[in-house]
């Protein structure tokens, strides 16, 4: 879409953490993302909403190049993080993913102990020089993941033995243990019950102080609750992007309005 209605004034390039310009994604012959421009600010929660198959998850996975693992997927255009093009041939996707953490739709702890789940990232990135430092990192990550109090007495128990909500918070702790700058969350609450969802949402709000968080969600209420900025995707197009309050109260595009009011999607 050529002209995307901006509900607020265009953000200044210097304040944006992630800046996407003309991003196109193809799955084989299928044009999944069409010419998306988006500016994601630091220390903000940005929500991507839209009906199923609209490309919001695909776009999210472009930001840490998880789409590279899919053979038939091609990405065109530019995505800049701190002004650096992450699709530059010089960029190693592995290094990028250490900087851009990800939490997935289904909680996917490693079938190892809770401790090893969180310690894995710091270990492979050499963030700790000794056991004491590693312990500290693990504790800090679990505290920030708001799960420390529940698991501190059973760090050696398997991560897969936790409840769904606990597993997802463990996965969030695992993602933040490597000290990323951006945290991508792909429908992190879709497999959780309302109580676990509330806990994770609360956690997302706290994470905003340190990270730039991008969350894909199916729940508009969730987008409204946790995000400051919202982007509405439809059929691979970024239809509307702006302050969450604005999008949910006075959307400019009729498609956004239809979706929010429940007529499409």
């Amino acid at each position: 879409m050529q002209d995307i209605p901006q509900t607020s004034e265009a953000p200044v390039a210097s304040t944006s953490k992630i800046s996407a310009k003309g991003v196109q994604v193809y799955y084989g012959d299928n044009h999944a993302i069409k010419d998306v421009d988006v500016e994601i600010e630091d220390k903000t929660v940005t929500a991507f909403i839209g009906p199923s198959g609209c490309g919001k998850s695909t776009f999210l996975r472009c930001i840490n190049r998880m789409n590279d693992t899919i053979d038939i997927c091609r990405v065109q255009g530019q995505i800049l993080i701190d002004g650096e093009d992450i699709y530059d041939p010089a960029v190693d996707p592995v290094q990028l993913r250490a900087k851009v953490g990800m939490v997935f739709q289904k909680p996917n702890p490693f079938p190892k102990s809770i401790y090893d789940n969180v310690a894995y990232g710091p270990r492979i990135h050499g963030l700790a020089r000794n056991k004491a430092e590693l312990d500290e990192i693990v504790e800090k990550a679990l505290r920030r993941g708001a799960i420390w109090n529940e698991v501190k007495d059973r760090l050696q128990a398997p991560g897969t033995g936790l409840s769904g909500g606990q597993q997802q918070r463990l996965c969030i702790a695992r993602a933040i243990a490597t000290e990323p700058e951006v945290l991508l969350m792909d429908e992190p609450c879709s497999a959780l019950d309302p109580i676990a969802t509330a806990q994770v949402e609360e956690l997302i709000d706290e994470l905003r102080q340190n990270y730039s968080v991008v969350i894909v969600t199916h729940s508009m209420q969730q987008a409204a609750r946790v995000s400051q900025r919202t982007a509405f995707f439809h059929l691979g197009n970024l239809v509307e992007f702006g302050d969450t309050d604005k999008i949910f109260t006075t959307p400019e595009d009729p498609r956004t309005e239809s979706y929010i009011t429940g007529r499409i999607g």
Partner: protein
Amino acid sequence: MTHTSLLKQDARTAKRNRAETRFQAYGLIAIGIGMLMLMVLLTTIVSRGTGAFQQTFLTLDVTLAAAKLDKKGERNIEDIKKVSTFGYKPLLVDAFEALVESGAVQSDLKPKDMAGILSKGAEAQMRDAVLADPTLIGQTVSFDFLASGRVDGYLKDRVTRESIVNDKNISSEQLDLVDQMRDAGVLGKKFNIAFITGSDSSDARPEAAGMGVSMVGSLMMMLVVLALALPIGVAASIYLEEFAPKNWITDIIEVNISNLAAVPSIVFGILGLAVFINYMHLPNSAPLVGGLVLTLMTLPTIIISTRASLKSVPPSIRDAALGVGASKMQSVFHHVLPLAAPGILTGTIIGLAQALGETAPLLLIGMVGFIASNGPETITEGLMNPNSAMPAQIYEWAKRADPAFYERAWGGIIILLVFLITMNFIAVMLRRRFERRW
């Protein structure tokens, strides 16, 4: 619409229920037939094979006369060695003569013929004992000699007085003697460990044949297979499954691996003959060559099962590892491979068990028909010296004329089956032990 009662089955439901009952009956019948076949197989093997684990022994006191064994009387080991097994023959004759004189047995047979009820290996047994301990010379020593194959058959009801009418190896008088000795308690069946640990023997001494050396041959081959097929197979699978791009080349490779699994094993045998023996000049009949051939045969099995277990690891685990910034290789080696390990191990053990029972390729590289008389001393010898293998040994015995070997073939099958069942059991245990749920 008429009202129908739920308490009464309508025609359609009744028909469907009958069909279901019938189908379940077919299933039970099928299982029943399978179980019956298995029972028949197992009872046949056990009833025919257990005899091989028992052998007839004759306890006899032999005076190791110094006059015959060490004429110089110096107890010089070199002098003692000069006396061949032929020189021990008179001692046996003397022992039987003494037995008759003592009145323990009555027989009109010449003592020389009496000795005919013993295995032809009896002299060698005495000689080995004397060479191991020369101080025995001059003493009277009690030996447990193997009885000849015919006598053993007589005690096992395989040989009867009718069946030996035209038999030059044994006479009715000799059997009378056997009866007397059995009644006296000096001759009887005992558990024969030599059948499990011993080596094969020549046609004339079925009573002395054992599986031991061919077991070593099989073991050596399995070592070669394990050392080659496991790393090669796992490396190939990991590459194909996790790293290789999906294009027509990998498709062709994939199809061909599946094809390779279906190639008859004898084809691998002739390949081994052409490449390993004729071209690379590796020794004939060597377990090393056998192992290489079986490696070729086992590789597809291991690759297919390894790929299946890699595939069964949920993609979310790979995503999780990549998501925290692990490289592709780290995600495979830290997470995917440990989760796939039980499946890989199971596949490997099944592949090994298959290779262990394989006979056809061994035919072509000369491991069948070879009589392995002495076990290897070192690992290198074990790999390079000609040897046989368990299934080849069984085949070898089964085709010999003397029925005494036939019994040993069944006994060999029991040993082979014990190995296979143990390996499969280990595979099942490993899978149970390490299986994870997510």
